[in-house]
């Protein structure tokens, strides 16, 4: 009996140290969420101004831009899947991958081939384990994405689209040819939207061709957009604006995904801590029972021994 008591105590100790670890991870995730939210907030002015500028150009000029034009026929699509670099975040990565797979299936059904672009090690691991092709991947930044990464991703995806859409002018096409990507006719992004601390939902959006006007924050109804002058010209301004707009959308997606990842991790670690507490309680009870059983047995052995001794002396007299 004493041996098993020692075993239970060892198990309690080990669960206790697990609990300490998960508790620490929970607290770290909680403090990082605040930082992630701050980062999302400080990126908001840029996104807002950019959206306003893009909608201003779109409203006041009739310039058609390759990035906004729907290609005549679409045979190949790119999906950017935003996953996490590390696990221990519950179903975070798997649910975003599931959403991406659904989208890929839908695109396949429409007769399109699908190129997968991945951000985050978990997504890379998922696809390479299944020996599926990954067009390109970016890792090592999932919980604190920088704008530079968003720009890199954006440049690549835009180049793929410019190559595939087939209505870009020579200059742009030449720039895109330098980038080593397969041409596509549409680009989708799958990321996890941060709804609240408790809810994060995987979300798929079509990034290219762009649909403007569906800005995150529309100008108020009564706010009339001023009649802008464009320098050097509307077309040049649009040329410079739209890629930035795309990059800013990607950055927005990455930031949302980072906040969601941390929230998911905090939730997962919270329930791990709760489970550890539950286990400790259970094992403590079992250990107490075992200890009590040992004591009871010892007493009954002593009592039995005393009785036997008394019987023996009574018999001899």
């Amino acid at each position, binding site marked *: 009996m004493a041996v098993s008591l020692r075993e239970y105590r060892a198990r309690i100790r080990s669960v206790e140290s697990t609990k300490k670890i998960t508790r620490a991870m929970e607290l770290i995730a909680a403090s990082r969420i605040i930082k992630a939210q701050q980062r999302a907030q400080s990126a908001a002015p*840029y996104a807002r101004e950019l959206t306003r500028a893009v909608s201003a150009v779109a409203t006041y000029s009739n310039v058609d831009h390759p990035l906004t034009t729907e290609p005549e026929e679409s045979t190949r699509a790119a999906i950017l899947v935003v996953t996490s670099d590390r696990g221990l975040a519950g179903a975070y990565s798997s649910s975003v991958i599931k959403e991406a797979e659904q989208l890929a299936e839908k695109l396949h059904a429409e007769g399109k081939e699908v190129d997968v672009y991945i951000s985050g090690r978990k997504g890379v691991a998922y696809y390479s384990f299944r020996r599926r092709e990954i067009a390109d991947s970016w890792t090592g930044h999932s919980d604190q994405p920088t704008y530079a990464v968003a720009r890199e991703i954006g440049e690549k995806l835009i180049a793929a689209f410019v190559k595939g859409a087939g209505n870009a002018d020579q200059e742009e096409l030449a720039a895109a040819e330098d980038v080593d990507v397969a041409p596509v006719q549409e680009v989708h992004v799958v990321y996890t939207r941060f709804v609240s601390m408790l809810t994060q939902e995987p979300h798929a959006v079509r990034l290219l061709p762009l649909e403007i006007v569906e800005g995150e924050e529309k100008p108020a109804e009564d706010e009339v957009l*001023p009649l802008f002058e464009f320098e050097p010209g509307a077309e040049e301004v649009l040329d410079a604006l739209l890629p930035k707009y795309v990059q800013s959308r990607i950055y927005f997606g990455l930031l949302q995904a980072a906040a969601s990842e941390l929230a998911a991790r905090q939730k997962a670690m919270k329930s791990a801590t709760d489970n550890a507490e539950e286990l400790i309680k259970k094992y403590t009870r079992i250990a107490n029972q075992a200890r009590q059983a040992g004591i009871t047995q010892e007493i009954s052995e002593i009592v039995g021994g005393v009785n036997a001794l008394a019987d023996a002396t009574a018999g001899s007299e």
Partner: protein
Amino acid sequence: MANTMNVALVAADRMLWSGEATVVNTRTLAGEIGIMANHTPLLSVLEPGQVDVRTVDDGHWVAAIDGGFISVANNQVSILCDNAEMSHESDFEEAKRKLDERLATEQAASGEGDED
């Protein structure tokens, strides 16, 4: 009409400065441009270089930017850029050096990212 306008210098990941100012000087693809209050609405592409702002209280600051846009409407001037560094001591060289450092560290970081 007020003689001041609201100016915001916004980088992709943060707002660097916003406040009231009287003059903004910078360089677009079409050339040098100076903006004062009640400027006509304008949307323009900026060249990498300097932004020079005179604030209402006779203050002055400069910033180094790596290209971007300027939008002017209703006395609201927004300068948007990927990266920017500013100097309150009106020292463009200092701002430029900071921006170069920032870009260099970013390059280094993305270089590491490519390897894995």
